[in-house]
């Protein structure tokens, strides 16, 4: 099985729409847009960054169908590749917008998938977040020379910086898996018992591990020292309940000073209601 690696999967996109270019140009003149809350804004500032602007990227991708064997659990590698490439495209376009702005990174990244009535078998993948730039003049570009991305909130971003780590990139891995239907004879054979079904156990284990190991590979390419906040999402999208996408997402981080400057938490008692 071939892993959809980022190099193979991601076409280079240098094709910002005209309106985007115009908006970004305005942003360069000091007016910024951001979807950070006031508290997040303050904490991003406190961490030594200022927001440059709201950046986004999208990709409408046709997700084909793939034949599958009714009674066999297997990865649907074409679908996996489609789901991966589409997200990676959206992310790359967002990073490009951030690069236009001369940003060091993008915080609060969200990745969404939308389905429209007009789009048979296709889906829109969007990535958006707030581009930020360091105030100390140092470059925070990641190992690939691109702005870092992260799905951390402003609060989490600040906390992470205090632990002596900097984000490198939002890393992900995905695996679309078909869960076998059980044949009636199999079901009848074990009727009357509650027993483990080792085939199912192994299939699910493998599906999740494939997603996670792909995510780990992305972190490896960024020379990250680790991944925090790993989430495992499971969605059937529009494929019916036996086909599941396992998506692993997390923020790759690198240790910088190794010095934890986080003050000891104070216990408080709230006098509010």
């Amino acid at each position, binding site marked *: 099985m071939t892993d959809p690696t980022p190099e193979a999967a991601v076409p280079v996109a240098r094709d910002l729409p005209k309106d985007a270019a115009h908006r970004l140009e305005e942003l360069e003149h000091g007016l910024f847009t951001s979807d950070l809350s006031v508290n997040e804004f303050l904490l991003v500032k406190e961490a030594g960054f200022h927001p440059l602007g709201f950046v986004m990227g999208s990709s409408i991708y046709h997700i084909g169908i793939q034949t599958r064997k009714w009674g066999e659990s297997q990865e649907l590698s074409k679908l996996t590749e489609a789901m991966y490439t589409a997200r990676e495209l959206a992310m790359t376009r967002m990073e490009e917008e951030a690069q236009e702005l001369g940003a060091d990174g993008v915080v609060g990244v969200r990745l969404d998938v939308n389905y429209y009535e007009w789009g048979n078998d296709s889906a829109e993948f969007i990535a958006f977040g707030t581009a930020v730039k360091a105030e100390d003049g140092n470059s925070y570009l990641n190992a690939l020379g691109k702005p870092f991305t992260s799905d951390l909130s402003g609060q989490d971003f600040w906390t992470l910086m205090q632990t002596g780590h900097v984000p490198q990139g939002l890393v992900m891995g995905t695996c679309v898996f078909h869960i076998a239907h059980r044949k009636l004879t199999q079901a009848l054979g074990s009727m009357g018992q509650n027993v483990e079904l080792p085939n199912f156990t192994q299939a699910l284990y493998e599906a999740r591990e494939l997603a996670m190991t792909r995510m780990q590979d992305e972190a490896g390419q960024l020379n990250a020292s680790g991944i925090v906040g790993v989430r495992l999402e499971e969605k059937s999208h529009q494929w019916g309940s036996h086909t599941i996408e396992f998506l692993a997402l997390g923020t790759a981080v690198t240790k910088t000073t190794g010095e*934890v400057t986080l003050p000891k938490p104070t216990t408080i008692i709230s006098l509010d209601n």
Partner: protein
Amino acid sequence: MTDLTGSVDPAGPPGPAAGDLPEAAVRRLQSDAFSSGLTVPDFAACLDLGLEPVALVQGFCVMQWGWYGPGSGYMRGMSPYAVASGGGGGYSETYRCPHGFVSAEHRTWGQNLEQPWVEAAWTQGYGSAYARMIEEATDMGAHGVIGVVDRVGTLADTGNTEFHFLGTAVKVDGGQPPAGGVPWSTYLAGQRLTKSIEAGFMPVAVVASLASVRVWAYCMTEYLMEGQVGMGWGGYASSGPQLVDQVSKAHMAARQLARKHVREQLVGDELHGATIDVATRELAQGDEVIDCTLRGNRVRRFKDFDPIAAPRPTVRLG
């Protein structure tokens, strides 16, 4: 600072030894970069405690989950006594009709019974998934697993039940490698774990149990549940709210059994941060299952309670 490197008793839910790790898992676990399912605040608190995340570890078990055992749907119509005699022991309680007549409609017998075969299957599924997660952690040379999350859910529409464990394996910074013991585990992470350790409790293992009680309603329970008492059943006629004795007892029994099962796993340690979930499912009219799950952290006291600093009163502006 407590010594979190110490190995603990081979604790945790009972289950068979785990199988082989898939190829992808081995590759991921060998990678240089750590992975952790911790949120950033929990990650920060974990570093503060001197714990270093090693890897996100997981374990699975898919169980066929039919109700084919004694007392299942297709055995309806059998006398509850036949079930009780083959039911494999455990809690049971019978109820007898006070009316003294027999008809096809009238349920002359009723029974509450523990379903040990369901509990055994749950324990096997939960225990196997847990053992597999711990096996991953042991392979990583971890001292413990924090922020454990377990999910029990139905797999697609196959009617099978999947047990899934996730947790973050951690090593104690600069600590000795674990001396062949089993890594400890806890549902807690972040400040909650810090506070629990500050309070003098060392994590041992997550513990959980299921108690499953089947309720076969007899005539009185049926009438009460349908609010029909008072419709002319002679001396039993009454109005207003009334205790449905059989169902109340079943609920109490389910909770007591769950506590008993967990206590058996504690072996003298303490239980903290317990949560109890009760799910009831009606299989047919007058035939109900009460499933009670109790989860918690088995902890061991290693020092006296060390009071935390007095909290500072705060008022949030806006």
